[in-house]
């Protein structure tokens, strides 16, 4: 499908929202009738799928409130997308944030540098393979990070997740459950340390 055919298809679909395609220097231009502005740009990490990134643009027309969501996929090897800063100046900071958080580069962006984390931070935090607790870094004199103690949290049961089996008591069979067995042994040990006698439920004797 050539560009002109694609443009004509879009025009046929959207009717009077889109102007007639104009060809100039072998480039096709389509104009959206009402002045659109970006409400926001966000990015998605489809971890495990290919293409890995999806960049989502939310557009809205001030005049009549029409909202459009544009999505585009980017695969991981390329990790690059042309910048829309020439059309909407507000995309400047949106794209910087996506670069900072996800690592997708925007070609044509005048000043693509990190915005929320500091210059020189080596990771892209919102990627699914980056842990919430963070990874240690060391930029002496500028910034450092340590791994945050999560203390077993966050305490959310995701259905079918690894931790749901450990959390849901109905699934645990005390005689075979490592956690339960260890807990009983530890409880006896604690009681011995505190009170001098090992009271409490001891290890379950298998029949």
């Amino acid at each position: 499908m050539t560009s002109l055919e694609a443009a004509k298809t879009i025009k046929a679909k959207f009717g009077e929202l889109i102007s007639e395609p104009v060809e100039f220097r072998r480039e096709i231009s389509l104009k959206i009738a009402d002045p659109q502005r970006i409400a926001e740009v966000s990015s998605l990490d489809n971890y495990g799928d290919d293409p890995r990134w999806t960049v989502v643009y939310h557009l809205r027309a001030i005049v009549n409130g029409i909202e459009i969501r544009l999505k585009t996929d980017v695969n991981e090897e390329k990790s690059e997308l042309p910048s829309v800063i020439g059309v909407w100046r507000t995309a400047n900071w949106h794209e910087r944030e996506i670069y900072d958080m996800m690592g997708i580069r925007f070609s044509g962006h005048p000043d693509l540098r990190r915005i929320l984390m500091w210059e020189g931070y080596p990771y892209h935090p919102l990627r699914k393979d980056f842990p919430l607790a963070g990874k240690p870094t060391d930029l002496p004199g500028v910034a450092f990070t340590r791994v945050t103690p999560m203390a077993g949290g966050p305490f959310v049961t995701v259905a079918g997740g690894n931790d749901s089996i450990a959390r849901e008591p109905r699934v645990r069979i005390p005689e075979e459950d490592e956690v339960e067995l260890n807990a009983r042994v530890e409880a006896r040990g604690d009681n011995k340390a505190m009170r001098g006698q090992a009271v409490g439920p001891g290890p379950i004797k298998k029949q």
Partner: protein
Amino acid sequence: MATVQDIEIGDSAARSAQAAAELQDMQGEKMVLNMGPSHPATHGVLRIVLELDGEVVTKADPDVGYLHRGDEKIAENMTYTQFIPYTDRLDYLAPLANNVAYALAVEKLLGVQDKLPLRCQYIRVMCCELARISAHLLGLGAFAMDTGAVTVFLLTFTEREKIYNLAEAASGARLTTSYTRIGGLMRDIPPTWCAQVQQFCDEFEVSLAESETLLTRNRIWVDRLRDLAVVSKEMAINYGLSGPNLRGSGVDWDLRKNQPYLCYADLEFDVALGSVGDCYDRYLVRMEEMRQSVRILRQCLQKIPGGWANEAHEPVSIPDGKITLPPKQKVLSSMEELIHQFMLVTEGVNCPPGEIYFGHENPKGELGFYIHSRGGGVPYRLKIRAPSFINLSILGELMPGCMISDVPVILGSLDFVMGESDR
């Protein structure tokens, strides 16, 4: 042995010529000034790297991220209800409004926005408007204090204490309320709350008039704000501004009127618009918005279903066990409610896979939530469209050309909050 030294002093003309020649070398040198993250006038932790030519700013590069706490990553690990306290801390001047915005976004994802009980909608509107007054008051107070008018700060904080009393009576906390839940509210308002709101409205109008006499026609205030940092309509739209900043430039866009949610369609109020787009216009828009909020509050007090004390026990949450927690008596006696309670608490509200974007008219602008859900009680991606983040991006364009003493004025007139900007 004393030494004698001959010093030659030319006449004054020669000396001034020499000084002028030396000055010529110094002119054209620009100074880079760091308006650091810890600064009284930056309304939080904002760093601006200013390039100055004497007193005139030639370049301004804002550096945000000093309060980036990783909210969006945290949201991917929390159920929808567990994330509500984090929304309080976004725009911490108006936490009730953030709560309502987030709850409405998740309810849009669930498809139950129109099933909200009417009493719940009116209470949410009242909370939003109180939050709007609270946020504008603090913005105004801090703005005035930065330009030197310190009295206004104390006046506005006195009124904000009354709003804190109201928030505490409704939710239990002054500042970080976490009042809404998915599908409704945490609890109904106490029976005396509406009377307190009415008393507040009466007292507030007097106090607002007092602040106005101090500022609006004050020669110094007008001189400092007028014709400063003019934002044209096109520039405002192109840079994605929203809220009073957008309306100060004359763009008639208020989400409460153009894309009404809750019961705003049944309420009468005007939208304040500026004409020039300078700092003075933005200030006037905020003052007028506060008056309109009082107007909305009075209408809600008249129209609230169930009356002030809710003798008829109108519900304030959707009575669906899959969305809101069932009443405790039923939980302890009936199996179905017990299971609902268990599932809601451990796994969260089960949202269908899909994605939505919902924008809410927050005091600072349009607070939007883009939720991409792949089923279950935990969002796959939650993006917060922070109005302060977008509003700050225009700084690099606005500041060059103004004097350094205009910088706090511009920052105050844009009225941003770093908690929201950095998330």
